[in-house]
């Protein structure tokens, strides 16, 4: 069914269609509408689920950890300071290998207080063991959320679907929603590697150091396997809906000598900028990351022989953009630019200027673009 809705509404629809049974969330701008919409659905009986009205984000993730570990499909959503407040639980859930889905509406971190987008918040999760995805548009925010439930349950790892504050969360776009039967066919009953309370066993007790080591190693290896699982699940989803939501998207990349790498809503503007430069005959294309974890290692092959510019809406102080650092670890010829941090507007015009400078070889490395 084609309809018009905001990113926040689309995520709530995805959570409903996934037949999520326990939801706990604490409101924070710009995620609030997800929480409100789900609370309405539960209260009206449209969604048969428990809604736990927690008093903090720490408790939001703690509660869905409890419900997920005890066997039920669970969801929470947060943003920025909320994510930082629950940070302890972020790691706990991943290390306990409990599948659940969390939406992160990306928002910068204060001070100064600022509710607009950048990718600093979601990238604090980078090393924790979560599967981390990022949407370009409302349709992807919906699709990634639905697929997240399947991916996390296959890998026994938590899944986050990121989307940019306001640019997606509060912007209405046309979305194609699958019907319940289609989602049911795609998403089987929840499965997980262990369920708390069924047998007399302890979870999370003190263990010898070797167990911690073994568990981290196992999560590391699972993350390597995750590339295949994401691709498999995205193919299954494509068969039913016609939409592919794999690890990354290539845009006019085949014959490109110059490649832009980025993630999130501004990738849409980058496509327009690339179209404009293409009209001028410049062989430039885009590689849009949908996933940061697992980091798709295949992109090394795709980017081989090209001049690469990685665009970051985040930074690691004094070193560079976080995605830039990641790509430099396994791709040659990478330049890196930090822009749009704190929600500073970067539109098609700015991107055309930036990409032109890059092509002309005049772009300063780790340039704070304004």
């Amino acid at each position, binding site marked *: 069914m084609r309809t018009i809705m905001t990113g926040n509404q689309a995520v709530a629809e995805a959570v409903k269609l996934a037949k999520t049974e326990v939801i706990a969330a604490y409101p924070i701008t710009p995620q609030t509408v997800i929480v409100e919409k789900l609370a309405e659905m539960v209260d009206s009986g449209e969604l048969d689920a428990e809604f736990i009205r927690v*008093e903090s984000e720490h408790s939001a993730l703690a509660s869905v950890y*409890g*419900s997920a*570990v*005890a066997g039920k499909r669970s969801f929470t959503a947060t943003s920025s300071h909320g994510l930082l407040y629950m940070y302890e639980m972020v790691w706990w859930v991943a290390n306990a290998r409990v599948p659940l889905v969390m939406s992160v509406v990306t928002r910068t971190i204060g001070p100064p207080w600022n509710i607009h987008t950048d990718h600093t918040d979601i990238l604090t999760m980078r090393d924790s063991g979560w599967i981390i995805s990022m949407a370009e548009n409302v349709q992807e925010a919906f699709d990634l959320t639905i697929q997240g439930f399947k991916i996390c349950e296959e890998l026994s790892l938590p899944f986050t679907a990121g989307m940019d504050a306001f640019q997606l969360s509060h912007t209405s776009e046309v979305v194609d929603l699958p019907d319940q039967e289609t989602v049911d066919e795609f998403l089987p009953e929840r499965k997980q590697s262990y369920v708390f309370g069924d047998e007399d066993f*302890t979870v999370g007790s003190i263990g010898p150091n070797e167990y911690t080591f073994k568990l981290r190693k196992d999560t590391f290896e699972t993350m390597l396997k995750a590339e295949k699982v994401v691709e498999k699940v995205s193919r299954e989803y494509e068969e039913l809906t016609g939409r592919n939501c794999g690890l990354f998207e290539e845009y006019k990349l085949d014959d490109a000598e110059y490649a832009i790498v980025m993630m999130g809503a501004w990738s849409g503007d980058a496509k327009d900028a690339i179209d404009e430069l293409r009209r001028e005959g410049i062989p430039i294309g885009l590689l849009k990351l949908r996933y940061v974890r697992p980091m798709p290692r295949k992109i090394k092959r795709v980017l081989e022989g090209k001049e690469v510019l990685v665009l970051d809406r985040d930074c690691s102080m004094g070193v560079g953009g976080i995605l830039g650092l990641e790509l430099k670890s396994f791709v040659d010829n990478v330049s890196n630019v930090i822009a749009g941090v704190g929600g500073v507007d970067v539109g098609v015009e700015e991107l055309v200027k930036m990409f032109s400078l890059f092509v002309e070889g005049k772009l300063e490395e780790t340039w704070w673009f304004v």
Partner: protein
Amino acid sequence: MKIEESIVMPGNPSCQGCPHVLGLKALGLALDNPVLVIPAGCSTIIAGIHPKATLKVPVLHVPFASAPAVAAGISAAFRRRGIERNVVVWMGDGGADIGFATISGAAVRNDDIIVIVSDNEAYMNTGIQSSGTTFWKAKTTTSPTGKKEERKDLAAIMLMHRIPYAATASVGYLNDFIKKLEKAKNIKGFRFIQLHSPCPPGWRFDSSKTVEMARMAVKCGAWILWEFDGKFSFSQVSKPYKDKNKRNSLAEYLRSQGRFRGISDEEIKEIENAVEKQWKYLEVFEKL
């Protein structure tokens, strides 16, 4: 008690005279089929080191401030799966300090869980640091000359959340604790018990005297046993000590613990006044 009746196995790594183990054994007698949610604290250690475990019930270890919220999630999942088990949070006064908002949130929502705070009046697991419930003037490693801050009445604060069941208990009176648990388990919603748990190494008394110390606290009126199940009442054990004249010596209780070494008569008088005030406001609840 026969070993096979206890949910705590022998050879567990608790200290000699540990009050938590007494409490856990009583809990195992009173509740059928409990699952325990345990945040960081002494009980994390008592529960044993993987792959061994010392508690014969399912235990979920969770971060310090999260326990009642995790329990709320488990309880929601159990409800949807039709599983009837008591979801019990077993935590210390440290967990209750750092997780104060978490307990409060769960109480306000009336989550269907039992929260037991086994209160040994300091952060014992990290080496005896002062907590919100540390007794007035008590010396801890972060209050080496005696606690100067106030002491919060956690159980009364929980009572004021208008929860269906709140009580205090003591490891010196396990029958009273068991009776309270048996009542609590048949009530739906949020149930809270603050269990007074004198700690031999933390309070500096001989490990053979845990029960004796717990009883001294009650008999001198410093720890007051009460219950709210819709109506507030002082528990049978504590009732006589409403009368100030029937209370045993507070000085004797304090001076039998190393944590009050060197306490002056003047300071004891101050504490006596604080204890008396505690009785007075609880008597107001009784009259309601």
